[in-house]
């Protein structure tokens, strides 16, 4: 290591917040000096953990040759709260609100996955009306998550305007959540066995009003970006990943679909009331940042389609299945996963027959998808790292748990 990098080394130690930066750098010592394009020293710099474009506290160590990225290493764990450990010390019901705090921009999806997993373990099923309410709220949450993603992703790349429009429109969704369950972000909307709350008077009208308001807005976002020359130049061909690499790296969600794999758990292994609705799985071809943008835009349109169908034929009936007051699932293991806005969100739960889960493992989509960052940015420019972090749509609360 040359003198130049040694100074960086010491600097990083200082910023490492307790994490030993030295060993991380050793992993990045890749090339010989004569391989560098500019014939200058390789530079190792720190991006984050306090950086507005990392969407939380993510630290990325970049090995650079001028502007070109030679390698990256993600340092995560700054938001680790030990959610899986907490689960072992709570009853099944008590742990339910904790899952909302993982992917906090899509709390409803987290809750749905957890509740359905425990229901499977208990061998009960939510009544049809509850399933419809679940689908409506989960899809609304997918919209909210994608809207937040688009706003911040565009902001990272330099388009400030969309952020304001998207936050304005996301607000309407959060208002529906607030009226439904009192919370806007960490909703805790579902209970094991169904939903705790019946829909409020005027829920359907509110949702339809939002659908009429929100759908044309997607065209407006697209008008701002889809053919915008700066947007296209910053995203086309950036952060390419092939379908093969996606599968090998376990990448799921819109990132996988943008690489051309038509796979969505809502279709592949349907859950809740999804088999009853018609919708398409949008896919891309090139697996670049631009295609991922297009896929998510199409996905939002499909969500509108699903919600409209669900609201129009929401059945009457109870919203809770018969659930024992004290939940003691029989001894056994279950893995249940759903299509969260970020990808496959899975819960692996082990029951020992007591009131508390013996082990809860969360398979977080953001964590696994983030692993692909290194592959996606190698050989690209520093500015593209920002674009790729944005397009992966990670939430650090879920990466670190």
């Amino acid at each position, binding site marked *: 290591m040359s003198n130049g990098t040694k100074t960086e080394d010491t600097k990083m130690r200082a910023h490492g*917040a*307790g*994490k*030993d930066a030295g*060993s991380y750098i050793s*992993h990045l010592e890749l090339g010989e000096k004569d391989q560098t394009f500019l014939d200058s020293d390789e530079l190792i710099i720190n991006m984050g953990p306090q950086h507005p474009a990392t969407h939380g506290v993510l630290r990325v160590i970049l090995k650079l040759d001028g502007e070109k990225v030679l390698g990256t290493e993600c340092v*995560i*764990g700054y938001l*680790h709260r*030990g959610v*899986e*450990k*907490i689960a*072992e*010390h709570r009853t099944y019901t008590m742990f339910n609100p904790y899952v909302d705090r993982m992917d906090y921009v899509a709390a409803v999806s987290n809750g749905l996955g957890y509740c359905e997993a425990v229901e*499977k*373990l208990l*061998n009960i099923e939510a009544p049809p009306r509850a399933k419809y309410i679940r689908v409506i709220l989960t899809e609304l949450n997918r919209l909210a998550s994608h809207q937040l993603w688009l706003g911040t992703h565009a902001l990272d790349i330099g388009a400030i305007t969309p952020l304001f429009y998207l936050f304005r429109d996301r607000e309407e969704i959060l208002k529906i959540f607030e009226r439904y369950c009192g919370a806007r972000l960490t909703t805790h909307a579902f209970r094991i066995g169904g939903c705790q709350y019946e829909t409020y008077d005027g829920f359907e009208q509110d949702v339809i009003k939002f659908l009429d308001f929100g759908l044309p807005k997607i065209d407006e976002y697209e008008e701002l970006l889809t053919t915008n020359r700066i947007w296209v130049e910053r995203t086309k061909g950036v952060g390419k990943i092939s379908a093969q690499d996606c*599968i*090998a*790296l*376990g*990448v799921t969600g819109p990132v996988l679909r943008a690489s051309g*794999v038509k*796979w969505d758990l809502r279709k*592949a*292994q349907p859950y809740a009331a999804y088999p009853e609705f018609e919708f398409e799985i949008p896919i891309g071809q090139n697996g670049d940042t631009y295609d991922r943008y297009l896929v998510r835009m199409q996905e939002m349109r499909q969500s509108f389609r699903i919600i409209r169908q669900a609201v129009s034929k929401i059945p009457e009936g109870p919203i809770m299945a018969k659930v024992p007051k004290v939940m003691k699932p029989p001894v*056994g*293991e*279950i*893995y249940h*996963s759903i299509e969260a806005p970020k990808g*496959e969100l*899975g819960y*692996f739960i*082990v029951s020992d027959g007591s009131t508390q889960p*013996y*082990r809860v*493992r969360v*398979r977080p989509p953001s*964590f*696994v998808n983030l*692993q692909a960052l290194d592959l996606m940015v190698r050989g690209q420019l520093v500015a593209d790292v920002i674009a790729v972090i944005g397009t992966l749509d990670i939430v650090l609360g879920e990466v*670190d*748990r």
Partner: protein
Amino acid sequence: MLGRLKQRYGSGIREASTYLGQNYMVVEASIISQALQILRDEHDFDYCVDITAVHYPQREKQFDLLWILYSFARNERIRVKTMIADGESVPSSDPIWPTANWLEREVFDMFGIRFDGHPDLKRILLPEDWKGHPLRKDYGIIQQDEEWVKVNLGIESGQ
């Protein structure tokens, strides 16, 4: 599929069954690497969904180590489980599925299970010099590496 695996490994496949509609099998730790390789190469389990562990301190072989696999071609899942004792290690599945890299690091971080041949086995969520593996059952819920907290955060307790 199971028939062929059983034919090749005989008693190495300890159990293969279905619980609540989900397939799983229990495999001897000595053949786990080959079994996983065969599942990917010959049975299309091309997507490794998750790798995780469960700790049973009262057992002689304290850890259940699990692979959750998915086949895109057949839209099917399987859980592969093996049991290992404390201190025992298994071959890394990183060469089979690159996604195993971080997943195994997390298992190492939380349980202290080592994976032989892993390219970069170190802690991932906790600080590198943290002591203890929190998801072990003998690790208390409010337990922490007090020395680390004192030295690095300059406070008496993180609780």
